[in-house]
């Protein structure tokens, strides 16, 4: 039943200098799912990175929403953001590194809205999981990671993988 190698790196970068935005463009529709893996820091202040997606251009509208659960070392909680243009990923710190994984399931279908599973791990502050909805039936061929204030620090690495199915 095996169809061969199916988990492929599409693009990767390790930041040589701080930046406030990282884009993946021209993403092929030939995969079934995408996985984005982020490991890094902020370079100052309080930072709440978010992500956006799009087809041909990044959707900057309030077409995102999410349901999350998090633990901060004292308690577990759950919340929701609706009609947002900045679906948040995690609180990014300046000294303790964080890891973020975003799974884009069935990202290229043009029939359904897109649901993403997000896991964030910040050993010094919080662990969180959320499910994010993009209310569009368009295929995703662009992904953006961004911070509203300050930047992703130099040394931050991001890799996008594609997963093929039989």
């Amino acid at each position, binding site marked *: *039943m*095996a*169809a*061969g*190698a*199916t*988990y*492929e*790196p*599409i*693009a*990767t*970068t390790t*930041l040589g200098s*701080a*930046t*406030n*935005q*990282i*884009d*993946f*463009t*021209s*993403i092929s529709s030939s995969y*079934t*799912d995408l996985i984005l893996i982020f490991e890094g820091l902020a370079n100052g202040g309080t930072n709440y990175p978010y992500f956006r997606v799009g087809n041909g251009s990044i959707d900057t509208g309030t077409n995102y*929403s*999410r*349901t*999350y*659960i998090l*633990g901060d070392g004292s308690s*577990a*909680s*759950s*919340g*929701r953001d609706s009609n947002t243009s900045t679906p948040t990923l995690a609180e990014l710190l300046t000294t303790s590194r964080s890891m973020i994984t975003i*799974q884009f*399931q*069935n990202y290229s*279908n043009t*029939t*359904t*809205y*897109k*649901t993403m*599973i997000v896991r964030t791990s910040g050993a010094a502050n919080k662990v969180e*999981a*959320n*499910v*994010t*909805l993009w*209310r569009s*039936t368009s295929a995703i061929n662009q992904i953006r990671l*961004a911070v509203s204030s300050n*930047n992703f620090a130099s040394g931050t690495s991001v890799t*996008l993988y594609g*997963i093929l*199915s*039989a």
Partner: protein
Amino acid sequence: MTPISLGIFASANTTVGTSFESIATVSVGSGGTSAITFNSIAADWTHLQLRGILFNSSDVQLIRLNNVSTGDYSSHGLQGNGTSASAYDQVNNNRLMQTGTALSNSTSPYTFVLDILDYANTNKYKTGRMLHGFDTNGGGQIQLVSGSWRSTSAVTRIDIVPGSGTIAQYSHVALYGIKSA
């Protein structure tokens, strides 16, 4: 700061080898289906991963191994419903784990990633781990669940069965095998 735009560098699609392999895929068509089944799973890999999106007319989806529906399963879960976080357990249950209620509409998918580790080992009980959930822009749920099947049999079949109703059109589930060195 100048944003960085990454075009697609790997036009040659450099692979990471044959350690993560697609085994089978099910796409549900018009009319839905009473179950999604992956059968005759070979013992060629070390772990299995099931990934997908689901739609259902009314109910949760039950995940079973080797078509076993007796009380040989148990599970523990952590869930958030957008208002509060809670934990639960299910013992002597008739399924490895269950999803939350999938959605009756065809636009907002329920999504999941399920890992079954050491699935072909005949010396161990079988353990699964699933992260799953959905959001409807005002509703939704996120869960992290672990499940145990108290059997040393190798897993050769996985079923996703609706608690009631059918698994609806546009559901799409893919099974992958992961090899070790």
